[in-house]
């Protein structure tokens, strides 16, 4: 099996998503609040996985713009739920050491006294292993 | 017992019933047998004690064909069988006058014998009114005593309850006898390896002498003619000792009563070879409960039986392998 295919299968396995169920209606992208910040749009995530181009996905800015707000998960009519694919791609990045989106030294300057723990905890979960 | 006899006399006298279906004393103190009593005088032989395990429901199939009503004495567990027979249109409710009799657990003479009690002459403490926890047994070797609970039938240790499911009147108190879980033994066997299971059942079934006692006593085995006696399923080799039915008899019998068996335990009680036949029926009951929802045959007279019912999302047969 080619490396590309393995990567695509891995992302399907982590996410539990079957991208072939997608009918390309674009409701995910119509729904996404972060759409404009994304370089690869939610609906494109699905076709990237089908086309085994996981490389582009893990290098995508979109991973760090997705809010995990589950709006696309809720509204997807085909049970594809691109949000899960995005999260899986993010997992693939953060599971490789040193690829974290958030480095420890940049944290102090991001903090402010009112910032709730919840924010830090969830950002860490999203950004780092 | 006397209260029961008095009431029976009364009902015979005033013409409510034409006969009484109960138990009469046998030759030995521990073998009363089912009997009809048609006159007040004959009731002198009537007994009702701890050895009256026999379930009289099945006799009502024939009694339903007789003129007039039959007074029948049913213990709480027997009423399930009666209900089930109503559901199957085998007995006529109108032909029965049911006295729900109290029960404090029924005795198993084999259990007494197994405790080394031989040469029994008389037994005290088996009367339904006796409060004693011990049975006093006079033997030719002297007096012995055995705890009542230790002499009880297996089915009484997992009693379904004191409630009569159907009756016209009730006489006598019932006692809680349950001290075990009904499906424990089935669960234990389920956990064995296939080899162990097979060894267990092969050993038990090899004792069978095909005397048909189980079939004859079973209230669910009430077919006019049993499939094992008709030629509907067999093509030719009827007399072959190794024939189909010989081997599969108990499995087929259990399947035929699955969903209809009330777990009255009569089959095991009457088996002269002591085969725990109820383990087959209880396995089906346990599976039905687990797969299709709790179901107690004879609880009522109109619910749909599990094998004549279904849901769209019933378990697939492959669940058997998955459950392990």
């Amino acid at each position, binding site marked *: 099996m080619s490396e590309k295919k393995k990567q695509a299968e891995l992302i399907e*396995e*982590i*996410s*539990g998503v079957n991208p072939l169920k997608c009918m390309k209606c674009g409701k995910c992208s119509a729904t996404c*609040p*972060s759409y404009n*910040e994304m370089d690869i749009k939610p609906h494109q995530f699905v076709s990237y996985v089908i086309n085994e181009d996981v490389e582009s996905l893990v290098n995508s800015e979109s991973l*760090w*713009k997705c*809010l*995990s*707000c*589950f*709006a696309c*998960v*809720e509204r997807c009519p085909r049970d594809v739920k691109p*949000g*899960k694919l995005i*999260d*899986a791609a993010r*997992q693939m990045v953060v599971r490789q050491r040193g690829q974290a*989106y*958030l480095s420890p030294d940049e944290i102090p300057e*991001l903090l*402010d006294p*009112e*910032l*709730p*723990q*919840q*924010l*830090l*905890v*969830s*950002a860490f*979960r*999203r950004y780092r292993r | 017992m006397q209260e029961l006899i008095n009431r029976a006399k009364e009902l015979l006298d005033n013409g409510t019933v034409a006969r009484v279906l109960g138990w009469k004393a046998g030759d030995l103190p521990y073998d009363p047998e089912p009997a009809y009593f048609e006159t007040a005088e004959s009731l002198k032989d009537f007994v009702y004690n701890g050895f009256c395990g026999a379930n009289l429901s099945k006799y009502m199939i024939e009694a339903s064909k007789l003129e007039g009503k039959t007074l029948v004495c049913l213990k709480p567990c027997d009423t399930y069988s009666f209900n089930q027979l109503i559901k199957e249109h085998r007995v006529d409710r109108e032909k029965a006058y049911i006295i729900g009799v109290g029960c404090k657990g029924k005795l198993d003479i084999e259990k007494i014998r197994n405790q080394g009690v031989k040469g029994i002459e008389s037994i005290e403490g088996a009367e339904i009114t006796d409060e004693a926890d011990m049975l006093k047994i006079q033997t030719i070797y002297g007096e012995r005593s055995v705890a009542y609970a230790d002499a009880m039938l297996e089915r009484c240790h997992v009693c379904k309850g004191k409630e009569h499911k159907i009756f016209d009147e009730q006489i006598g108190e019932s006692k809680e006898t349950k001290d075990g879980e009904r499906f424990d033994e089935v669960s234990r066997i389920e956990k064995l390896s296939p080899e162990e299971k097979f060894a267990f059942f092969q050993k038990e079934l090899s004792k069978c002498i095909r005397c048909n006692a189980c079939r004859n006593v079973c209230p669910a085995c009430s077919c006019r003619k049993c499939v094992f006696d008709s030629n509907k399923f067999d093509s030719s080799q009827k007399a072959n000792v190794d024939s189909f039915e010989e081997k599969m008899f108990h499995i087929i019998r259990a399947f035929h009563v699955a969903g209809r068996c009330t777990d009255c335990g009569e089959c095991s009680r009457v088996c002269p070879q002591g085969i725990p036949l109820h383990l087959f029926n209880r396995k089906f009951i346990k599976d039905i409960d687990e797969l299709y929802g709790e179901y107690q045959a004879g609880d009522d007279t109109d619910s749909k039986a599990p094998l004549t019912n279904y849901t769209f999302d019933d378990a697939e047969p492959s669940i058997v392998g998955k459950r392990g």
Partner: protein
Amino acid sequence: MKYSYYPGCTLRTKAKDLDDYARASAKALGFELEEIEDWQCCGGVYPLGTDEIANKLSCVRALNAAKEKEQELVTVCSACHHVMKRVNDDMRNVEDIRTRANNYMELDEPYQGETEVLHFLEVLRDKVGFDELAKKVVNPLKGQKIGAYYGCLLLRPGKILAFDNPENPKIMEDFIRAIGAEPVIYPYRNECCGGYISLKEKDMAKGMCDKITESAEGFGADMLITACPLCMYNLNKSSKKEIPVVYFTELLAEALGVKEACAGAAGEDEKEVQA
């Protein structure tokens, strides 16, 4: 009536008042929140990966603790609630996760999702009843026009959280009515505030919060309520509008007349923490 209670880390610190008001209101309404012993942080986000087990164990522990006490488990924080319900759903319905989590946990009896997880609002709706709540209100918040801000975590995925209609919820509106105020329905009440993104992408969060507050004000809201410390932070911090945002428990405590009592206590705790 006693419930197991999982406050979560933010309610221990920055959102202490969300917690205090909840406890005080519970008392006033006649139920008790028994804090689970030695609870651990839920992690703030539900790990979506099908192979994530370790990150879910803190929730399983809390859920099992409630099971052992034969109590329902109550949460107040939206994030904790979200994570807890979804982990519980996994334990009920995803065999692989259930088996593996139980292998880690080595409990006497495996945990299989027996515990019922309830949000404080669900307790108000399903256990207390909004009609009953309305009867216990001593200071009805008459004349206040309040917008409910649900955010994402309480509602989605609708099938698993089963909290309310995810596209057109009404539980908070009913709550607002019960405490005597007037709910303002606006379309952005279930849109995301930006969540954790505000740590690094301040502008994005700002854009989203602006949409929410503008829409709420446009429909006439004077105030927003939320159940989530992070939403609260973002809406306060990132929106150009200055519409006040408060925890729903604060209004509840106020309506029930127990606000003053616990405000003092909260203040003291704060001091201790600072000291």
